[in-house]
């Protein structure tokens, strides 16, 4: 016969003001299996909990019902309290007498009846509770970081500095992402290469970090602490262990290709390093454009020229599988393809209408024009430059609805650079708003104004070429006039969109995406770097547009989360998971089809039936993966699978208790 103890809380006056506590206590005494009832002014307080502990010993209780505030509030507290007694923390049920009774009702008599019903339901449910024990799963103390931009690098460095091995996967031939393409960074105007390349070198040389460039994640299975990840090492046809990066092959290679890194404004060879300070500083061969590999000619110059003989044309993709304890996703962004959306800006037919990254390459010392701002069409220095902001951002019907956050600042930076590098230049910036929400951002913007940048408030409606000039027709909403500027070059500050292929990464990690395809964080304010998949974290722009300071902050935050997991030898799993009664299970597999976490697998097991040894298919639950939703339990017709903590019997008892 179980011995249930019932403890009704006054919660000061929150419950007592409306609910007649004495009557509830009186009625509770007559409920089945109840041997002791007590009320308390503040059950969650130290003395309140102590009173329960004493009662457990004195009355040899084995099940506890607490009538107090919402279980979402103090269930963990009371469970911790029970952990210090010899009762199992899961032999506890809580009746919500505050948020769903005293606070929402006024009629004292009816509220008290409801309170009694709620306690009766809890008492009936607790009668069917079983002792549950958390099981622990081992943690592989190795982290995987997907994406080698500044976010991925920073996260990898922080985790590695904490002493844990990290694999940093990047699909491009070099680390650096978008930041290494930039010239200067706002608001301090320090050179991007000087603050990004050292971090790349650190990551490249860190004993705990294995850098895997030209690689993509192919398959992910398992759960927090035990992710099984297969990475595809794409064939690069150059043996990086032998190569010294001397660069002779790059000089001799005959076939020229437009360089993606230089945003299409310069050429590279089929065998190339994306940029001089690449990490690893070793070339790869782009099979599509290499004449030997795409069968156009019998070339092979690089092989003959290479002093180390590290070119191997028979190289193939390799699949490397490893287990990881936690994953940080830092897949970053790319700029929106404005040419296919904005026909009114020329749709890409005017070479001198370029986007922000192309301008960064022009103004960058290691860029195609060694830092001189020259027009892509004729290489002349543009005397009048128009910068157009919010191209694709804040434009729900043609582009994206959101604001891309960083372009206000880098537009001001571009204006500053134009006025600084080109003497007596004219720079017009068409804007809707100037958002300078950061440290020293506003001062940077006012300094650009003082440099002589002309800010025109309005959108550019049309850009067309006439007599060699790019006519930008727009509107100055402050003066109410239409404006037309004849410019030599136009820079469009286009919207950030998620990097191509992010869908694949998201589905591999079973994390969802918002309707703009940014990766979905667990909670925008309280858990910005976590996802709903335990053990998978986000860092940087993949979670939403942001600038470098925020990106680095998020990277360190996700690293801290990973180190939090690795600091424990083992992870406690949630005990309230599904359990299968293999006697009742007919192996129909309905439950496996329903489980969103693929935690249920059908396995053949040996049985003795009627004296004959047979193997039969039954359902088995992986305790690490199961999150305890119970969708499988409701789908199982004979009730062979049940959810511990919310078993069929428990809920049916609650239903019966309410109605008798």
């Amino acid at each position, binding site marked *: 016969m179980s011995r249930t103890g019932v403890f009704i809380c006054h919660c000061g006056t929150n419950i007592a003001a409306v609910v007649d506590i004495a009557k509830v206590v009186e009625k509770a005494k007559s409920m089945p299996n109840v041997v002791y009832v007590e009320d308390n002014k503040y059950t969650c307080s130290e003395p309140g909990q102590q009173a329960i502990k004493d009662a457990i010993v004195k009355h040899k209780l084995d099940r506890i019902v607490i009538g107090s505030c919402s279980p979402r509030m103090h269930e963990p507290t009371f469970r911790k309290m029970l952990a210090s007694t010899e009762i199992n923390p899961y032999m506890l049920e809580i009746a919500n007498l505050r948020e769903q009774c005293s606070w929402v009702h006024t009629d004292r008599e009816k509220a008290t009846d409801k309170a009694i019903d709620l306690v009766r339901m809890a008492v009936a449910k607790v009668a069917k509770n079983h002792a549950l024990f958390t099981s622990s799963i081992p943690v592989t103390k190795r982290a995987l970081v997907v994406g080698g931009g500044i976010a991925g690098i920073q996260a990898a460095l922080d985790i590695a500095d904490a002493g844990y091995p990290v694999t940093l996967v990047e699909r491009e031939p070099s680390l650096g992402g978008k930041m290494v393409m930039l010239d200067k960074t706002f608001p301090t105007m320090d050179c991007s290469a000087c603050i990004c390349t050292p971090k790349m070198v650190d990551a490249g040389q860190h004993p705990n970090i294995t850098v895997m460039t030209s690689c993509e994640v192919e398959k992910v299975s398992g759960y927090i602490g035990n992710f099984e990840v297969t990475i595809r090492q794409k064939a690069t046809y150059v043996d990086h262990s032998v190569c010294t990066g001397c660069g002779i092959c790059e000089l001799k290679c005959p076939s020229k290709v437009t360089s993606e890194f230089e945003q299409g404004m310069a050429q590279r060879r089929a065998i190339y390093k994306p940029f001089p300070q690449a990490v690893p500083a070793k070339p790869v061969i782009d099979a599509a454009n290499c004449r030997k590999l795409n069968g156009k000619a019998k070339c092979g110059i690089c092989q003959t020229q290479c002093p180390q003989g590290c070119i191997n044309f028979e190289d193939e993709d390799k699949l490397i599988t490893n287990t990881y304890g936690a994953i940080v996703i830092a897949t970053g962004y790319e700029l929106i393809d404005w040419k296919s959306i904005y026909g009114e800006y020329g749709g890409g037919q005017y070479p001198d209408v370029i986007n922000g990254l192309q301008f960064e390459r022009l103004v960058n010392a290691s860029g195609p024009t060694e830092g001189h701002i020259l027009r892509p069409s004729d290489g002349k220095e543009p005397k009048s430059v128009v910068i157009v902001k919010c191209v694709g951002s804040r434009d729900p019907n043609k582009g994206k609805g959101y604001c891309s956050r960083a372009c206000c600042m880098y537009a001001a930076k571009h204006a500053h650079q134009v006025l600084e590098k080109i003497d007596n230049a004219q720079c017009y910036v068409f804007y809707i708003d100037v958002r300078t929400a950061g440290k020293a951002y506003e001062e940077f913007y006012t300094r650009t104004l003082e440099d002589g940048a002309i800010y025109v408030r309005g959108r550019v409606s049309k850009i067309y070429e006439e007599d060699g000039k790019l006519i930008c027709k727009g509107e100055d909403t402050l003066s109410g006039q239409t404006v037309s500027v004849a410019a030599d070059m136009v820079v469009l500050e286009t919207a950030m969109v998620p990097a191509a292929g992010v869908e694949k990464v998201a589905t591999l990690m079973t994390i969802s995406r918002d309707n703009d395809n940014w990766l979905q964080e667990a909670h925008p304010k309280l858990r910005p770097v976590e996802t709903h998949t335990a053990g998978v974290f986000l860092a940087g722009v993949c979670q939403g547009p942001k600038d470098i300071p925020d990106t680095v902050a998020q990277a360190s935050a996700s690293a801290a989360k990973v180190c939090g997991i690795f600091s424990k030898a083992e992870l406690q799993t949630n005990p309230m998971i599904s359990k299968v009664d293999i*006697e*009742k*299970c*007919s*192996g*129909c*597999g*309905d439950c496996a*089809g*329903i489980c969103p976490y693929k935690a249920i697998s*059908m396995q053949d097991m040996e049985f003795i*039936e009627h004296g*004959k040894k*047979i193997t039969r*298919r039954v359902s088995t639950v992986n305790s690490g993966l199961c999150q305890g939703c119970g969708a499988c339990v409701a*789908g199982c*017709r*004979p*009730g*062979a699978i049940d959810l511990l903590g919310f078993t*069929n*019997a428990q809920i*049916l*008892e609650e239903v*019966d208790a309410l109605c008798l």
Partner: protein
Amino acid sequence: MSDIQQELRKTARELLESGEVGYIIGWGKGRFANQTHPIFVKDPAKVDELVWDDYCLSTLAKYTQDDKYPEKKIGICVRGCDSRAVNRLIQDHQLKREDVYLIGIPCSGKLDPETNEPAKKCVECAHRNPVVYDVLLGSPVEEVPQPERFKEVEELEAMTPDERYNYWADVYDKCIRCYACRNVCPACNCRECYTDQYRVGWQGKQNNRAENQIFGITRAYHVGDRCIECGECQRVCPMGLPLMKLNRKMLKDINNLFGAYEAGLDTETKPALGHYETNDVEEFM
């Protein structure tokens, strides 16, 4: 009719003599001309007990559940409804396709022994030819479309809630909870039916109206998305309860809500409650 019977017996003798099949489940004659019942023929000499006449009504697939781990293949005579039952059992992983040898026989409908009229379930049958078989005796018959598949259901839906309650109350008052409907149904293939489980509290064991109603509704809900409309539950019910009206109601709603659906035509299409579409009908906003 007799030449199919000859072929059936010849095929049965070959299968039994070659040892490919352990035994054959078919129909045999009872004492009276209008009585046929399932029989199990093991000995090649006894194949002449197998018959194919107007009274072969009972579905045979469910008998495979009594011998779940056969040494040799089991031979079964399958008409349209039996073959769909076999597909259902395979889809529910209660039967392996390689464990059975299906003797397909196109069926143009059987007679009800009491009334000698065409049996109700055969009149309403939409798939007379077997959908799966290893050998086919005779040539396929012409399928009869069933436009009035849900007529009876619509008649009931036209009533007011109280009239419907009274209609079903009278029906359930007669139910004696013999569970014949469950035992004959190929969709009811759990190892231990929820009604047989002790003290879980799903449903009481008393035989009163309320418990009978709960049993009827729960069973119809369980088999709703798997029912192959073979009509056996209604045929075997000793109290003559109109059980197909329950199953057909579930099928009517599944068709309207989730798209045209007939159970057991193949082993790929999943039962409606086993999966979902993100753009399902939305009524709870």
